[in-house]
């Protein structure tokens, strides 16, 4: 078991060890410690750190680094991530590999500093123009954040796409023991610029959008088939299955353990990839399950849409889907248990 480390510091150190060699970003709470750590750490390993004049400049510097085939990443929160949407859709469009870390904070507009999961729909559907879908990974512990960061880099390069590590304010700010990865040798991918035009490209006005749409759908299908990730507990015989990710997911895992102890047949699917959504996880679920319960830290219930879509797809009959949206923070295990009881008693109605 590793040493106590702050989530944001663990992510920053792990990125360096995974061979990332360009970071460009702009400070914003609760993500800033990633940048602060990188600001001295990156030069130590000969990598590039740029404190960008804005989040937009930051993501575009990442585009520059990624265009050269160098592991490049940035981190931000709330409005800072909103500003990066144009850059993210371009990364996808240009098939450049890069990692975006969203340390999610609560709120519309300028927002708050609370930990939350209110960017789910935006991250999974893409807030920029077009049809692109980034890979979205959601850790529930610092160790998982570090491990998934490695996955994020690998997948983004394997599929030439953007990967988002969608973590939460609380996970960035908290500490727990974590084993950091070994150092790997930084690479420069052959599809990156080398000044010699080794990798040919057509100009924007010469592209065939119809063909590219087909290729994009194929790529997405492959990712959906191969890269669904999740954890599950006790879903095979469950009357009700919770679906919850990140820190609320971790808390829900605890609530499930407690509920089971109290004799309730409940289980949980904890999505680790939010896109692709782990549809396969639902195949193991008791076919007679009475309902699914989405637990989230946002105001409106966002992931619940994916839960409902998946339930519709995977079950021949129409299973009810419930939404527990706790706005911000990490829901208390006891609160989840109590709300579960209300659902089982019919006091909380399904939303889909």
């Amino acid at each position, binding site marked *: 078991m590793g040493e106590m480390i702050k989530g944001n510091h663990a992510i920053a150190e792990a990125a360096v060890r995974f061979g990332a060699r360009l970071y460009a970003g702009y400070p914003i709470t609760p993500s800033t410690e990633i940048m602060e750590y990188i600001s001295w750490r990156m030069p130590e390993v000969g990598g590039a750190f740029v404190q960008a004049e804005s989040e937009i*400049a930051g993501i575009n510097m990442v585009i520059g680094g990624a265009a050269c085939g160098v592991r490049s990443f940035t981190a931000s929160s709330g409005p800072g991530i909103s500003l990066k949407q144009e850059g993210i859709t371009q990364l996808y469009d240009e098939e450049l590999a890069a990692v975006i870390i969203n340390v999610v904070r609560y709120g519309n507009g300028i927002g708050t500093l609370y930990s939350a999961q209110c960017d789910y729909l935006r991250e999974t559907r893409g807030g920029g123009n077009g049809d692109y879908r980034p890979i979205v990974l959601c850790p529930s512990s610092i160790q998982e954040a570090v491990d998934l960061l490695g996955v994020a880099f690998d997948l983004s390069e394997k599929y030439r796409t953007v990967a988002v590590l969608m973590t939460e304010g609380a996970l960035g700010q908290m500490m727990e023991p974590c084993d950091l990865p070994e150092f790997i040798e930084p690479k420069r991918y052959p599809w990156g610029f080398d000044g010699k035009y080794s990798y040919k490209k057509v100009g924007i006005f010469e592209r065939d959008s119809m063909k590219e749409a087909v290729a994009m759908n194929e790529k997405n299908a492959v990712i959906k088939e191969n890269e669904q990730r999740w954890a599950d507990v006790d879903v095979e015989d469950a009357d009700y299955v919770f679906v919850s990710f990140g820190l609320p997911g971790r808390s829900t895992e605890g609530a499930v353990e407690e509920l089971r102890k109290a004799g309730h047949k409940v289980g949980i699917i904890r999505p680790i990839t939010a896109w692709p959504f782990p549809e396969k996880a639902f195949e193991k679920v008791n076919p007679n399950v009475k309902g699914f319960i989405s637990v989230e830290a946002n105001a409106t219930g966002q992931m619940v849409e994916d839960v409902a879509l998946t339930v519709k797809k995977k079950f021949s009959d129409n299973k009810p889907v419930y939404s527990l949206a706790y706005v911000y923070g990490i829901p208390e295990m006891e609160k989840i248990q109590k709300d579960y009881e209300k659902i089982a008693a019919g006091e909380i109605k399904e939303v889909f």
Partner: protein
Amino acid sequence: MAKARKIPEIAKKPSSFCPGCGHGIAIRLITECLEEMGQDTNVMFGIGVGCSSLLGGVLETDRLHCLHGRAGAVCTGMKRVSPNQMVVSYQGDGDAYSIGIGETTSAAYRNENISVFVVNNTNYGMTGGQMSNTTLPGQKTTTSVLGRDCAITGSPIKFPELVSDQFNVAYAARGAVTTPAEINKTKKYIKEALTAQLNGEGYSVVEILSACPTNWGMTPLQSVEHIHTKVVEHFPLGEYKTREAK
């Protein structure tokens, strides 16, 4: 004594610029310099959105079509991870001085070791001739149909002057691609800019006054005349910051 001259290999594909458009000369000069410096196969371009985007069909070099205005940041990212390659940004006046003013000035502010070429045709060419930050006082465009009123919209921005006065940059100049003499001078400026980068001296920028016959509603020859009589009045030609090494 005739000297052999030929379009550089990396820019030899035909372009789809309008007849008499200055972009064609500007890009030829840049690629000629790169070739002469032996850097034509050691270069990456950040290309702005605008008629410059048409270079996608021309340039056979590493090149990224940057998001509108962001070439300053993209080139920063490229250069920081590729210190041994030449990094060149090629943008229009709208791209560099309006939407991209933050990225353009910030790259100059940091004295980023890149070369920036801004084709100034005093309007947004690609989108059909709207006013830009370099549109001349009184100039009619599709968003200043009565002629630009500087009291409301501001007066033409002078970027080489601005960075020379305010920031610690390596080189700044303004040329025009109108006559053989001006073209030759402009080429010298471009060479200076690229040399500054090659020597690691920092940020270099050359603004290139360029005809946009289509949106000016002029013939190519009238456009050249217009540049000499009207445009240079607001945008004086010459070097604003010379290289210290010289």
